[in-house]
């Protein structure tokens, strides 16, 4: 590999690409050429850095300068000042929200300080389209070690010992899963990588595939070696074109190097992968539904057992793991099960990647050790709530998870604690809500998603979620009763108790957890007909304060439905029955005489 004094790492993740990072990379290269620095500085397009809030990111090594929100126009300055003269472009450095100081090195940013990157170890570090960079970082060494120094059972034992659990949501012990698949005899077995990431707001799998595709291929080959499979299939959403492209490039490079194909590293082990595209149905993240979708059938779950490890793709033993789970595997084999299990909590080892979103300052992708508290994630890494508002709740586990509150902030995050708190790990979505969010509306939002994404196979999910959603809509429109809230609780419990697959069994969680933690808010909706957060339009009540109204008629002229009446220079009145709560009068009034409740 050529020697460069300076590497300019430009984020090539989907988020930063959407903000023109490709043009930035192009401009940087051009400026380097203009100044004749081609032999000194190299522009590398990497995977996601995680700090998407501040993208596009350009990081310059060796001095570890982290430029944020770079625009294509900034490139000239970066090259002429920083690369040529060694002067950092201060205005592009991250500004600490509390101290207002510019921080140059990402390691000193709150966002990165608490993170440990295992699954994301290569994201934002290597060029994902260059296998050499992966190999230079010990890539395929874990596969080599497994193939030449270990028996399949020894590898499985390592994974078991590491305590790695499935990162897709279920938290099933990965080593055990492999062991079961290995134990079933068949002429053909399959390794499947579940890249059908579907939680709203979650994009860790995509980032890993975009930023470090080789780690997934390597882990799949290791898994294939363990369970006795020669074929691997990546089931990936067709909506992830960049991840697909990078994965294809990676696979091609592997075949050129002989790291996929027959007799890998002279070990006699054959393995290759292929890609299958999912059409984006959320339920296809459920492993049996995923397998049916791959078989060309309707993407619907089936009752387990039989588990895929017994009868999966084409009726053959199949091991399905999620992307993030696989990403941990090579690191475990290289650094050892002890190292991995030293990180995390008693029953949840290692790290977990979360996608931070919502009313939080630092939106992005983070990887923290299991056991980190919600407070650390939200207030230290996430930089707290936007606009200094008050924290209200955090929704974990995507549409299947629940809302956690203030009192859960110091709960160490792991699989079991989240379930105990009425939510779940899920694939790692984390959506933060502030005082302006109506929790009934939040529950309604998630139900809308599950209603859309239900496959329709089992009655509780197909019809039950629809009814939950209708009931929530009724409450939000001010027509609910306290009995409705009670019925929501019963219906939610029955759906959880009877639905066929994980989607239905968890879909009432947002409703049940918000009823549990924000019962008063539901009560306010149905008894006082008030939305405390002021989000439910139908529950807003517009009135005119007679002492402030000058009778200027601006409001009555702006009302689209003629709900405001009154004589000139006399206080006006709003007819609540006619009012459609559009807020036009509120905007027009110059005397703050319109009162909203």
């Amino acid at each position, binding site marked *: 590999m050529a020697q460069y004094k300076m590497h300019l790492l430009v984020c090539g993740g989907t988020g930063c690409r959407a903000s023109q990072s490709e043009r930035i990379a192009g401009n940087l290269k051009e400026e380097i050429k203009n100044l004749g620095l081609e032999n000194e500085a190299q522009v590398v397009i990497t995977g996601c850095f995680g700090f998407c809030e501040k993208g596009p990111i350009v990081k310059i090594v060796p001095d570890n300068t982290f430029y944020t929100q770079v625009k294509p126009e900034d490139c000239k300055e970066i090259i002429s000042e920083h690369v040529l003269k060694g002067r950092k472009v201060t205005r592009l450095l991250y500004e600490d929200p509390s101290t207002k100081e510019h921080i140059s090195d990402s390691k000193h940013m709150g966002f990165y300080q608490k993170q440990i990157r295992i699954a994301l170890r290569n994201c934002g570090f290597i060029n994902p389209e260059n296998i050499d960079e992966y190999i230079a970082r010990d890539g395929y060494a874990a596969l080599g070690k497994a193939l030449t120094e270990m028996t399949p059972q020894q590898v499985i034992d390592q994974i078991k010992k590491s305590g790695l659990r499935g990162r897709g949501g279920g938290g099933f012990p990965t080593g055990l899963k492999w062991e079961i698949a290995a134990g079933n005899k068949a002429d053909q077995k399959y390794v499947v990588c579940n890249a059908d990431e579907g939680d709203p707001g979650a994009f860790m799998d995509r980032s890993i595939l975009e930023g470090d595709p080789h780690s997934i291929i390597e882990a799949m080959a290791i898994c294939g070696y363990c369970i006795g499979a020669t074929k691997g299939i990546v089931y990936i959403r067709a909506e992830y074109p960049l991840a697909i492209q990078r994965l294809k490039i990676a696979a091609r490079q592997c075949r050129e190097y002989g790291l996929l194909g027959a007799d890998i590293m002279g070990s006699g082990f054959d393995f290759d992968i292929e890609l299958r595209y999912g059409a984006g149905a959320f339920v296809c993240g459920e492993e049996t539904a995923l397998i049916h979708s791959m078989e060309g059938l*309707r993407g619907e779950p089936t*009752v387990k057992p039989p588990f895929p490890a017994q009868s999966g793709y084409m009726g053959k033993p199949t091991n399905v793991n999620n992307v993030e789970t696989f990403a941990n595997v090579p690191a475990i084999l290289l650094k050892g099960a002890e190292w991995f299990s030293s990180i995390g909590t008693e029953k949840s080892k290692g790290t977990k990647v979360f996608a931070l979103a919502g009313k939080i300052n630092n939106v992005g992708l983070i990887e923290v050790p299991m056991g980190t508290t919600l407070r650390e994630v939200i207030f230290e890494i996430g930089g707290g709530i936007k606009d200094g508002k008050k924290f209200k709740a955090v929704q974990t586990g995507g549409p299947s998870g629940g809302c956690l509150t203030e009192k859960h902030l110091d709960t160490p995050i792991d699989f079991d604690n989240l379930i105990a708190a009425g939510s779940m790990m899920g694939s790692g979505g984390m959506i933060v809500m502030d005082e302006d969010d109506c929790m009934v509306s939040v529950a309604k939002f998630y139900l809308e998603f599950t209603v859309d994404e239900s496959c329709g196979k*089992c*009655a509780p999910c197909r*019809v039950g979620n629809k*009814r939950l959603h209708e009931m929530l809509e009724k409450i939000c429109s001010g027509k609910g009763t306290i009995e409705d809230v009670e019925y929501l609780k019963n219906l939610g419990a029955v759906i959880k*108790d*009877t639905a066929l697959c994980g989607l239905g*069994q968890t879909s009432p969680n947002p409703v049940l957890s918000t009823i549990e933690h924000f019962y008063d808010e539901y009560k306010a909706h149905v008894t006082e007909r008030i939305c405390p957060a002021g989000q439910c339009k139908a529950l807003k009540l517009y009135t005119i304060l007679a002492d402030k109204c000058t009778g200027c008629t601006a409001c009555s002229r702006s009302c689209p439905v003629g709900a405001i009446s009154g004589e000139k220079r006399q206080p006006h009145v709003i007819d609540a029955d006619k009012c459609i709560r559009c807020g036009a009068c509120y905007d027009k009034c110059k005397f703050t005489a319109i009162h909203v409740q």
Partner: protein
Amino acid sequence: MFNNVFSVMEKIKITIDKKEIEVAKGTTIYQAAKDNGIHIPTLCYLNLDHLKIENRPGGCRVCVVEVEGRKNLAPSCSTECTNGMVVKTHTVRVLNARKTVLELILSDHPKDCLICSSSGQCDLQKLSQTLGIREIHAVENAAVSTYRKDVSPALKRDMDKCIMCRRCETICNTVQTVGALSAINRGFMSVVAPAFEQDLIDSPCTFCGQCVAVCPTGALTPFDDTGRVIRALSDPTKTVIVQTAPAVRAALGEEFGMEPGTLVTGKMVAALRTLGFDKVFDTDFAADLTIMEEGTELLGRISKFLEGDKNVKLPILTSCCPAWVNFFENNYQDMLDVPSTARSPQQMFGSIAKNYYTQLLGIKREDLVVVSVMPCLAKKYECQREEFKTNGNPDVDFSISTRELASLIKAANIDFNALEDDDYDSPLGESTGAAVIFGATGGVIEAAVRTAYELFTKKKLEKIDFTELRGLEGIRTASIDFNGTMINIGIAHQLGNARKLLDGIRAGLYNFHAIEIMACPGGCIGGAGQPLHHGNSDVIKARFDAIYREDAGKKIRKSHENPYIVKLYEEYLGHPLSEKAHHLLHTHYFEKNKN
């Protein structure tokens, strides 16, 4: 499909509702309970064990039970018993869940039960009664999923009544391999329909109607022709005659509370006469005629084959079953010259009635109305095929199902059980035992063998019963010794089994001389027009046995010995495969380019 027969060896102990029982390993909770007198309700689960047909999607969630140590409720239909398992089928938790789930299903179901064509037959209605649902909790104006209605000549689809049990889908795809029905759309709007939202008539549907036979609600129902039959009967200018298919007599009694397998031939004839049909005839007569034509065709092809003719098409395939005809027209267009050209008995009867019987009566064909009573829905489609019409007048005017006949009888205030037995009219009402067994799988070929043997060997059959051809196995094979010449016979019922045979023939794997195929499980006795079996395949087995009982009781049991058939050839047709016979009793097949 998961079959329990392979793991019956090992026994395990479980407790259901405090009752300790021993079951074979691999048994489901549902089955273990059922075997011990605990009937857990279900809507989607279907198990026709005699026919090895199972639908077990685990989708309705009505059969959930509590299993100790398990987090959520278990679907009993698809949860296998494990040693020491403790199951409770009627705790408060279970009952609340079961009722709530049923309420949910009902909340998305029309409430017009009073006028639903499945009223009284509906599994959903019955379960709602059993669980005592009196109220449906849902918001006012709760959404209901709706879908365009579809009416074909044989069956109607009203998907608003679909509860997504997927039985029809399993039957259509897994059992029949027709592939006309599958779930489309998602979630609340999911519905079972042909691909690309086609209507059935444009789809690869064969109109076998087995989807109707298993539908637990009124979503899939037969096209009802009873109104047109009543109008014809009350038209003084028309002579209305009726033919009854062999399988009807073995099942009609069930509609009047009789045990499955009760033969009601005499009562049925009496009822039809009371209904006002001018003549009551028997499709069995035409079945004997079919044997004469098809048997002769078979012998012709075999003789040519034995003489070394390389162009002769063997095996000959039976062509009595209209759903089967639709199936090969859709799927085996390269083999359209393989099946026998003989028309089905229904159409042979119609043709003889409209051409020969009108002569005997001296009336115009337009003034004769031929009604058929069939166990079958595909017959409704068949009698409308253009090739079976003369100047737009069909040989068979209307085809009604066994269930439709029952409803006609009930509407006419006839106390069926009290009727005295009556006899068919002459001449088209006379038949042999060979014709009766057309109603069961293997029967057509057995009837053909009885005749072909004697015609081929010029010897009298020692033993009339070819038990080697009988049974409910999906595919059966036998070799019959025709006095030194071994004739290889294949038999398949259910179209999926037919496909296996046909694919084998296409690939040149088999060496059959003749193959009988029936679309429905068990043959016509399991037809979609028969009284509903409600998932109990004992019913079909009982009808199967009844058919052979009827045969055994017949004086004449070989088609070529039917004196009226002999007379028909002498007076009118000449001989089998004569030009006239070709014109009136044979047909040809069409390529249907349905994907």
